[in-house]
Every structure is written in structure tokens, then in C-alpha cells.
């Protein structure tokens, strides 16, 4: 990795230097990377001019791997080492996967024991590592396109992804060496691309049927503000299910059975081809070369529609629920934006048309629109677009709560709450002298813990012994702008901040990520150190640049002494960069960050005052 250009001491690098920021759509079937070029968002092509990267990774004997189009042909010949649709396994345990028997992979992991892994010729791989291979491929593509290092990326996730799935995506970005600027929801990204393109105002619905996930979001668009009012969906429903339904129908019609993993993979590939052909043709032959002999069976469009009717109905029931959450009627929706390759299916188009009573909007490529929207947001987050007035106000898709006595859920953050948000609830002890409390964090809408998704278990220790019910333990849930949850707990009467131990139910621990990072470097130690050093220097540069631009804008808020302190911290950070020790550089950067805290607070105060003053003048 090349370093940022280092200027002479005292001479600041050009603050308007363009940063390479991209949007990445990490999809179930395929992934894309997009960036702003000459003021327009566009998807970046590979060397062969293809913008789509199939989300397929094949592990080879001897440590090699094939990614994307190179891996696809091996789906039928080497299915156990060729992983497709890995997104379905992100943040998921073995008992979450309904169709394990129909998948050709060798899953590792006990039911109820954390995220699944897959056994390949290259060893056991976590879905996070497999996704990181795809992300790294897109990162290299972007860096080759611009012949420059990547500053950061916005990565999209289905709106209905829960906390474990979001965290897994964030971990994958870290493994791929990508600075994550923000996780944003796929329908929201699509709305940005669509809304900015069409200068739309009013209520819009985004119907996003991808390869493995379904999302519905209801948004209000007003002058650059994208406010999500409600969101819903099904994180395990997508085009793959239509393929499976078609396979099941053909097998039932013909009485043929799949003999092994290779047959299963061939049937999936055949179903996908048949489904896609049915978009344009009335009748298509389903053709697969199975181990028991060739299979050929004609499929009419009507057969396919009937076989998948229940799936389409499931999407519409999620649409109804989201509209009710938004307290809107279907005729108040001005337009329905179609996103995701699966919305090309005629029966889906028709069902949405019938439900809303108006033709859905298809004028942007449904495969690209998510990546394009993410690129627009990435460009603004990186600070390239100083005039940009795009504002995203997104929501949390699923309620968050804690397990209480009797296996019941106490809801702390309700779904469709605008993020970032922080909410607290007080709990107490139920036994005299109780000094510890086990907390179980869950996500979902049901009243019973067993019906919700387990996110993490906490143990709160060091509560001073008191009578039962006397302790007041305040548990605070904070959901950040990425939609990720942090939980803090404190005993209020003694003021004792008790120790917390987090055990993510379906996530990776910091140790596991560190080990994976290490594994991903063949000559381990030295590369690790070189990378840590480069990243520490980059971070120091970022911090110095940010502080200088803040000083330029609002330096008048500081006294001479405060100003001198900050200047010397900047000098110290710049000086530390010439050291060969990442830890020392990080310490200097951290000192600068800490030193700017009060300044950041007064800058924010000024901004807020100006916002209010501006309005009051406006409304006169």
C-alpha cells in the first residue's frame, strides 16, 4: 500500500485533494462497486468491461482462489469449494439455515453455536472471510481504476439485516482492508440514486427483491432529505427461493431425484437459467445434465408463476405491514421504485402493479441502482462534495430488547426508530445480596425470547450487595448511524460501573478477526507490521487534516492558549509519523483526537445555533 503524500512540516497538503470513495453493493448473487466520476455516479468495470462481479469464491488446493466469473463454472464441478450466495450465511447460525440439505456445502458448527463456517480445501472459512475476498476484489478494481489508494467505502446491507448480519459485514470490510465510511440500507441507497436523478419529492416505496433478501422501505423525500418512515422485509427471501421453488416443481413433475451435491448445484444453475429465460419467453425447457442422465422438461411461464405465487405473496404481506407502520395508505405512495435483479420477473412486476394500482418505476438499472446511490453517499461522506446537502435519516428495522424473568422480552428500542438513537431502561436484582446480573440482548418483534434473535449475552459483575429490588441497574442501548448496537450497563445507586463481558451470539470476537487478518497474510508478521504502520500514518494524516480544516473554519472559538495546545499536538502527530512504530504514532494521533474534544463540542454548538437562527430569520 502506498502512503499518502507527506508534505514538508508546516506545509499542509491540499485540503481539496480528492479522496477516492466508493459505494459497494455486496449482493447475494453479484456485487458491484461504483464511484463519482466527473460529477456522475457510475459503476466501475473490470478489465473485461464487466461491471458485475458474481458473488462467488472458489478455494483451490494449494492456497489459490478464484473470484467472480472465474469461479462460476466450477459451481457444478467443484460445488463444495465454490461458495455462492455467501451473504445468506452472514451472522447466521446453523439452525437459522432452513435448506442446509439442499446446499452442496460442508457446514462446520453445532446448532446454536455461533456463526456457521464452511469446510473447503483451503481449510475452514467463515462467511466473513469469504465476503472479504469479494470486497477486496472490488477494492483492487477501484484502486486500479483511479490508480490511487482507496480512502473509504460505503457498503450497503439489506434494510432488514439484523445487528449480527450488519456486524459481520463490517468485519468483512475490515478484513478486506477497507475503511468503512458507513453501512447504509440498500433501499435507501436506491432511493438516493433514484431521487437525485429525478428530483422527486413526496412519499416513495422501494421494493427491493435481491438474490437472497427482500426489503421494503417507505421514504419521504424533501429537498435533499431522505427520511425513512418505515422499513420491513425478509432477510431470507429472494431470487434463490424462486430457483428452489422451480427445482422442486420440476422434480415433482418428473419424479427425478438429485443424487448428490453436484446434482443439486446443477439443478440450481439450470433453474436460474430457466427463470431468466422465462422473463422474455412463454415456454422454456428446463435442462440439466444429472449424474443419473439428462433431464429436460418444458416450463410454461404460468407454471413458474403458480410455483412461486406464495413467495410473491410473502413480499406483499411485508409491504402491507410497512405501510401500516408508516401510518400510510397505499394510494398515498407516489411511486414504487423497483430494485434488485429479481424484480425483472414478470409476475413480481405485475403483483406490485396490482397492489399499488400504478406502474412501478424501472428507469434505473435494478442491478446497479444500489451501488450508484452508495457512491453518491460515499463521495459526500469523504468530504469531496462540500456543497452537498444530502441528508439520510434512516431507521432501525427490528426492535431491540432484553430478556427478563420468564423468558419474556422487555423492548428497549422499538423498530422504525430514527438512528442514531440511545434509549435506557432500569432493571433491578431479584435476590438479596445479588452481585451479578446476566443480561441477554435480543432483536425481534415477538414477546418471547425464544422467538427473537439472540444478539449477545452480557454479565454485569461487581454490584454492591443490597436487598432484593434495591439496586437500580440502568442499561443503555445505543444504535449508531451504521445501525449497530452498543450496550452499556451501570448500577446507579452506588455509581459503580460494573464490568461487562460481551459474548456475541453470532459474531466474531476481536481475537478471531485478528487471527483471520493474520491468516490473510502469507508472510505474516512482517506484512502485518508494515500494514499497521501504514494505517497508523494514514490515520495520523486524516486527523491532522481534519483538525486543520476545523481550525480554519472555527479557530476563532479558541483562546490563544488553547490554540497553541492544539498546534503543538498537531506538530507532535506529524513528528510521530516518521517513527517506525505504529503504537507511538497511534498514541500521538489519539492525543490529538482527545485534545480536540472540547473544540469539537463548541463547533457543534455554533452550528446548532446557526441552524436555529437561520430558521428564525426564515420564518419572519
Amino acid at each position, binding site marked *: 500500500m502506498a502512503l499518502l503524500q507527506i508534505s514538508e512540516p508546516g506545509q499542509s497538503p491540499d485540503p481539496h485533494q480528492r*479522496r477516492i470513495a466508493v459505494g459497494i453493493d455486496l449482493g447475494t448473487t453479484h456485487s458491484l462497486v461504483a464511484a463519482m466520476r466527473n460529477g456522475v455516479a457510475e459503476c466501475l468495470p473490470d478489465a473485461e468491461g464487466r461491471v458485475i462481479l458474481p458473488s462467488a469464491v472458489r478455494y483451490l488446493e494449494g492456497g489459490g482462489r478464484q473470484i467472480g466469473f472465474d469461479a462460476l463454472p466450477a459451481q457444478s464441478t467443484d460445488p463444495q469449494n465454490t461458495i455462492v450466495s455467501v451473504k445468506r450465511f452472514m451472522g447466521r447460525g446453523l439452525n437459522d439455515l432452513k435448506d442446509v440439505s439442499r446446499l452442496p456445502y460442508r457446514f462446520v458448527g453445532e446448532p446454536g453455536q455461533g456463526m456457521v463456517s464452511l469446510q473447503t480445501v483451503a481449510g475452514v472459512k467463515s462467511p466473513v472471510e469469504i465476503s472479504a475476498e469479494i470486497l477486496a476484489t472490488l477494492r483492487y478494481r477501484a484502486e486500479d481504476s483511479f490508480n490511487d489508494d482507496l480512502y473509504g467505502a460505503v457498503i450497503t446491507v439489506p434494510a432488514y439485516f439484523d445487528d449480527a448480519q450488519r456486524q459481520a459485514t463490517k468485519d468483512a470490510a475490515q478484513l478486506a482492508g477497507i475503511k468503512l*465510511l*458507513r453501512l447504509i440500507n440498500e433501499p435507501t441507497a436506491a432511493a438516493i440514486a433514484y431521487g437525485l436523478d429525478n428530483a422527486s419529492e413526496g412519499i416513495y416505496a422501494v421494493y427491493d427483491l435481491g438474490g437472497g433478501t427482500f426489503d421494503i422501505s417507505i421514504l419521504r423525500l*424533501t429537498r435533499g*432529505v431522505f*427520511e425513512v418512515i418505515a422499513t420491513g422485509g425478509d432477510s431470507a427471501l429472494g431470487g434463490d427461493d424462486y430457483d428452489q421453488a422451480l427445482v422442486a416443481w420440476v422434480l415433482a413433475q418428473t419424479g427425478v431425484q438429485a443424487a448428490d451435491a453436484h446434482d443439486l448445484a446443477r439443478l440450481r444453475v439450470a433453474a436460474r437459467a430457466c427463470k431468466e429465460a422465462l422473463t422474455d419467453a412463454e415456454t422454456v425447457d428446463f435442462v440439466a445434465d444429472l449424474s443419473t442422465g439428462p433431464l429436460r422438461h418444458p416450463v410454461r411461464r404460468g407454471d413458474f408463476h403458480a410455483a412461486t405465487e406464495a413467495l410473491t405473496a410473502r413480499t406483499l404481506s411485508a409491504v402491507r405491514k410497512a405501510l401500516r407502520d408508516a401510518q400510510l395508505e397505499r394510494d398515498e405512495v407516489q411511486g414504487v421504485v423497483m430494485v434488485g435483479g429479481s424484480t425483472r420477473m414478470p409476475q413480481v412486476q405485475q403483483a406490485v402493479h396490482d397492489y399499488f394500482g400504478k406502474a412501478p418505476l424501472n428507469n434505473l438499472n435494478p442491478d446497479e441502482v444500489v451501488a450508484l446511490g452508495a457512491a453518491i*453517499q460515499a463521495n*459526500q*461522506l*469523504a*468530504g469531496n462534495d462540500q456543497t452537498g*446537502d444530502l*441528508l*439520510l*435519516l434512516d431507521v432501525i428495522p427490528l426492535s431491540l430488547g432484553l430478556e427478563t424473568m420468564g423468558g419474556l422480552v422487555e423492548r428497549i428500542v422499538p423498530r422504525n*426508530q*430514527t*438512528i*442514531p*438513537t*440511545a434509549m435506557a431502561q432500569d432493571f433491578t436484582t431479584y435476590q438479596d445480596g445479588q452481585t451479578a446480573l446476566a443480561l441477554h440482548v435480543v432483536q425481534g418483534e415477538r414477546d418471547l425470547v425464544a422467538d427473537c434473535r439472540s444478539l449477545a449475552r452480557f454479565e454485569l459483575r461487581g454490584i454492591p450487595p443490597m436487598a432484593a429490588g434495591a439496586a437500580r441497574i440502568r442499561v443503555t442501548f*445505543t444504535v*449508531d*448511524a451504521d445501525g449497530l448496537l452498543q450496550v452499556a450497563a451501570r448500577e446507579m445507586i452506588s455509581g459503580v460501573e460494573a464490568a461487562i463481558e460481551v459474548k456475541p451470539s453470532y459474531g466474531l470476537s476481536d481475537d478471531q478477526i485478528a487471527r483471520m487478518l493474520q491468516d490473510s497474510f502469507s508472510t505474516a508478521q512482517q506484512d502485518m507490521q508494515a500494514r499497521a504502520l501504514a494505517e497508523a500514518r494514514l490515520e495520523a494524516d*486524516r*486527523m491532522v487534516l*481534519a*483538525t486543520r480544516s*476545523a481550525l480554519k473554519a472555527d479557530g476563532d472559538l479558541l483562546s490563544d492558549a488553547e490554540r497553541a495546545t492544539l498546534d503543538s499536538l498537531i506538530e507532535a502527530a506529524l513528528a510521530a509519523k516518521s517513527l517506525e512504530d505504529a503504537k507511538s504514532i497511534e498514541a500521538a494521533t489519539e492525543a*490529538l*483526537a*482527545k485534545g*480536540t*474534544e472540547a*473544540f*469539537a*463540542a463548541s*463547533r*457543534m*454548538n455554533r*452550528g*446548532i*445555533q*446557526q*441552524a*436555529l437562527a*437561520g*430558521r*428564525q430569520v426564515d*420564518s419572519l
Partner: protein
Amino acid sequence: MNLQSNDFELFGVPERFAQDRAALDQRWKDLQREAHPDRFAAQGGAAQRVAMQWSVRINEAYQRLKDPLRRAAYLCELRGAPIEAENNTAMPAAFLMQQMEWREALDDAGSVAALNGLDAEVRAARAQAIEACRRLLDDEQQFAAAAQQVRALMFIARFERDIESRLDQLGQ
């Protein structure tokens, strides 16, 4: 004005029950435009932490201000008449009678039409209670009486949720 300012001060609106919803919506967006963490994504950790605090605080105030029940409860508390619903369960007899009638009607309602009819009745009662809150808080400064109305509103809100889940069961 700072993070400790009350919701009304933070939004720069008069400290009273009657509010213009459109103005609140607009003010919320103006404030988030300044404070949202997205505006500080390219800056240091300190700026991002401050942005997070403010953005959370603005969302919290907006949730409270835009919801009549929560806004009324908040004003009662500011005026020294806290709601303390768990310690104040005594309600007027007439109100309790009506609650019981509604419960019976909900148990008996077997159709969507019957539920919708009940829903309309409860909504009307809700609108009345909200108007009573406004009068007691803004015109008459009867804060203890307003707190009593807020507790009535809490009953009504809970009942509305029960109607909704019955509608859910009937597949609407």
C-alpha cells in the same frame, strides 16, 4: 443552548402543548443537517463522538415533541406534576366504566367491521383527551389535572394497541 437544554429550547419553539407539526418536522431536519454523524464522517473521532451525542439528543427531543402524549407528559414533568403512572393508578369511575365497556366490546368483536367501529370510537375519545390536555396545560395551567389526562391517554393508547393486534390476528 447545550445538550442539557430542554426539548423546547433545543428546537427553538415555545414551551407549550400546542405545536405546529410541520414546523417541528422542519426544525428536526435543520438540526440534523448540522449535527448528523454523516457530516463528520471524514473528521476525527472527537468530532464524530460529539455529532453522535447531539444527533441522538435531537432525535430524542423530536420523538417526544411530535407525539402529543409524550409531549404532554414531558410538559407536566417540567411544570412539577410528574406522571408516575405506576404510583397513580386511581382513575375516575366514569373513565374506568368506559374502559370496561371497551374491553367487552373488543372481546365480542368478531369482524373487521366491528373492530374498525370500536377503533373509531376510541380515536374520538383520544382526540378529546388531547384537547383537554391542551386546555389544561396552555390555557388553565392546571398541571395536576393535565397529568391525570395524560394517564387516561396512556390507557387509551394501550387499548389502541390491543385493537391493532386483534386486527393483526384477523389477518388485516
